[in-house]
């Protein structure tokens, strides 16, 4: 298939050999405790349906999605709800969040699951509804509720589904293993998604550094009409949704738009696999494949893990650390989030847990920018990172916004390449956060102003009415006085 060039990007050392060749470990023992945060997706947090001491079965709905962009949460195993309250989660703020703690009873007893659907006969709406009920979210890390994306056909004229199997982040191999080990199920999931979206064409994009996955998927895709497996260049950030669509179709998603504007919807490979489970077996999303890697991990590998499993449990399974890790991450090394604490749980979007050594990170002292232009050359979004950083350093956030700060996808290619080791992404994230806060503040002030204005208007109206009334009374009084005087005068006469 003809591919199209995308701007910039970097060639990264994959470091996937640490885990890529190893089978996924499926039969982990159940941890002593599972910590299940109510917010594992973009959107409104789910609302707990259970109370402390409730007994729940595996797959039972324990928190329901609220509103249009949200996702329900199910019990990963059978057991007792021990606690509902604040617990550390993988958020860079290090702040705790509302979490349901489940003490497994070891029986792993399923609840009654909804009936399997046959994508051939089921309607598009039924499939999307099933995906929504199963609590499936984008499993590449973005965690956007998948059902919302499957319903895009209601508002957009769609013609193609792209399955993102690029897995361009170094170290991560969980998608690679799903494609190698479960190609048939993944492709069945893709088929169900095509039905839900009402499209007849699907492209499965896999980076060239995963030939085994490519061949496995191609073998099974041949049985299905409309599904093509494409090998795309292994160049970061190929897995960025809009850039992948450009590489495949040559078309550019408008700024602040969606790929759906180009009639394309992108879903992750692991999401397709989860959707297979939901549609063909009625299974909710309660576990996922997680890559545990990095040179600080004794036995790196891929593990099929229950949602809510503490990271410390996983690192113990991997034999612990070879040395004290310099950095613990959730996700890949380019865009992953630092983990504040080893007790935080795996959530639906956790593609990887990385424990990186000092030697791997090569953290070095920042030097002044020498304007080499390397960041300009690698930026896949066509930005001038060095200028953005200079403006942000001088606190000119409006200036930074004017030259495209909001178009930055945060891929980190600029920081990666920077010979001065400037923390460019840190600047951008800071500025984006500040702009967002300013915007929220501005909106709040506007709202307040409207309220104050209308209050003033009301006050004036009341005053006006009162004055009118007063004037009227005065006039009446005067009139009465006049009349009285006239009457008195008459009487005197």
């Amino acid at each position, binding site marked *: 298939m003809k591919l199209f060039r995308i701007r910039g990007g970097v060639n990264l050392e994959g470091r996937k050999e640490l885990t890529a060749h190893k089978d996924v470990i499926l039969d982990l023992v159940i941890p002593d405790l599972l910590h299940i945060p109510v917010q594992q997706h973009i959107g409104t947090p789910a609302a707990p349906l259970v109370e402390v001491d409730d007994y729940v079965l595996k797959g039972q709905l324990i928190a329901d999605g609220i509103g249009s962009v949200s996702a329900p949460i199910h019990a990963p195993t059978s057991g007792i709800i021990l606690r509902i309250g604040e617990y550390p989660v993988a958020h860079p703020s290090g702040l705790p969040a509302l979490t349901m703690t489940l003490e497994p009873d070891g029986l792993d007893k399923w609840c009654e699951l909804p009936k399997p659907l046959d994508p051939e006969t089921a309607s598009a709406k039924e499939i999307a509804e099933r995906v929504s009920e199963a609590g499936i979210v984008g499993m590449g890390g973005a965690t956007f509720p998948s059902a919302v994306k499957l319903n895009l056909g209601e508002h957009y004229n769609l013609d193609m589904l792209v399955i993102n199997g690029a897995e361009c982040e170094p170290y991560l191999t969980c998608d690679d293993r799903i494609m190698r080990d479960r190609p048939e199920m993944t492709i069945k999931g893709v088929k169900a998604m095509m039905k839900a979206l009402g499209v007849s064409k699907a492209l499965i994009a896999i980076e060239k550094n995963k030939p085994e996955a490519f061949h496995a998927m191609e073998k099974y895709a041949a049985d299905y009409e409309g599904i093509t497996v494409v090998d795309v260049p292994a160049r970061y950030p190929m897995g960025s949704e809009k850039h992948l669509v450009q590489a495949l179709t040559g078309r*550019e998603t408008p700024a602040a738009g969606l790929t759906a504007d180009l009639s394309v919807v992108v879903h992750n490979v692991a999401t397709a696999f989860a959707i297979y489970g939901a549609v063909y077996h009625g299974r909710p999303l309660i576990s996922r494949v997680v890559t545990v890697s990095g040179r600080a991990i004794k036995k790196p590998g891929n593990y099929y893990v229950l949602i809510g499993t503490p990271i410390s449990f996983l690192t113990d399974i991997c034999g612990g650390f070879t040395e004290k890790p310099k950095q613990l991450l959730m996700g890949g090394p380019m865009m992953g989030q630092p983990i*504040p604490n080893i007790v935080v749980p795996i959530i639906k979007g956790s593609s990887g847990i990385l424990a990186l050594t000092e030697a791997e990170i090569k953290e070095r002292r920042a030097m002044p920018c020498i304007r080499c232009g390397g960041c300009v*050359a690698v930026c896949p979004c066509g930005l*001038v990172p*060095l200028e953005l950083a200079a403006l942000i350093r001088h606190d000119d956030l409006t200036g930074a916004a004017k030259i*495209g700060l909001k178009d930055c996808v945060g891929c980190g290619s600029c920081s990666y*390449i920077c010979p001065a080791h400037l923390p460019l992404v840190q600047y951008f*994230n800071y500025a984006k956060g500040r702009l967002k806060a300013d915007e929220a503040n501005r909106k709040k002030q506007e709202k307040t102003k409207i309220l104050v204005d209308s209050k003033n208007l009301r006050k004036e109206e009341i005053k006006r009415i009162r004055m009118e009334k007063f004037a009227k009374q005065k006039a009446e009084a005067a009139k009465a006085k006049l009349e009285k005087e006239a009457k008195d005068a008459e009487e005197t006469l």
Partner: protein
Amino acid sequence: MSFIPPISGPYLRENSDVRKIMLLVMLALLPATAYGFYLFGWPAIILFLVTLGSALFFEMICLAIAGRSISTYTLDGSAILTAWLLALSLPPWAPWWIAVIGSGIAIIIAKQIFGGLGQNVFNPAMVARVALLISFPLEMTYFIQPVPFLNEGAPSFMDGLGIIFGGSNFDAVSSASLLDFIKTEVGQGAALDQVMAGRYQPENWLLGNSISSMGEGSALLIMIGGIALMFLRVISWHIPLSILISIALFASVFHMIDGARYPDAMVHLLSGATMLGAFFIATDPVTSPVTPKGQIIFGFGLGALVFIIRTWAAYPEGMAFAVLLMNAMTPLIDRYIRPRIFGRTRQGDPLDIQEEL
């Protein structure tokens, strides 16, 4: 497990840093420099060391006054590189105080006062070269016939000390550089073919057995270093190539119009500071544009200025002036020449989907 402060990724970095870039540029300068040492002997080596030493001294003083880490910033290599480029553009037997004043101007005025590494608007070595040329025209145009090492009449180490630090009446054949000679003669009304008779020796200009500054003699060795830097991706082709094409274009056009007045492209490309300027000075990242398109505009303008100054201005060589003038244009070029943002038109509006379809 202790608390790890939240910092943004990426947690991988390419193996590049400022010091390594500076080091690679110096390595690329080594062939031309070594050849300059060979041609001009001990005095040149001593002058080179005086330039580097004084630059480092001034750098350390400035860093100390500014309260910045002397070890970190002195060792970043930028001061040494600046001094190195300055030394290569000095007359090979210039007196010691030319080197010291030049280093002082480059490091203190052109670099540190602007805020140090990465903050200067003008190329420090060229600021120094121009300031010296204007202030000390005699010393800055004192060129000699090369007296290579091992040849009869080559100065010894002690002679070298005498030449650079004064007090020596060492006998050298002083001479004008080719561009200077052409300028003078043609300016006095001589026809170019008479002026160039017996002097048109492109092979000598290429190899460097010519009258020139310390390191500007061998176009070939400079080119080899420059091309090596391109392969190492320290510099890109945009600036050097556009400068060379621009100079060659202007020179050829005018040579065709009036061959008796205007020397051909070979003279312009292979003599004077053209090669050193195109590959090593104009490519200074700090003072040149950051986008490829901006770099091409920069290079083309620079080449045009070199030709204009050499041809019509009072100075026979225009590289240093051209570099400074284009340095001044760099912020403007960077302001207007930007890459197109993904998903937006050149004007910055979101792409129109209807148009796309």
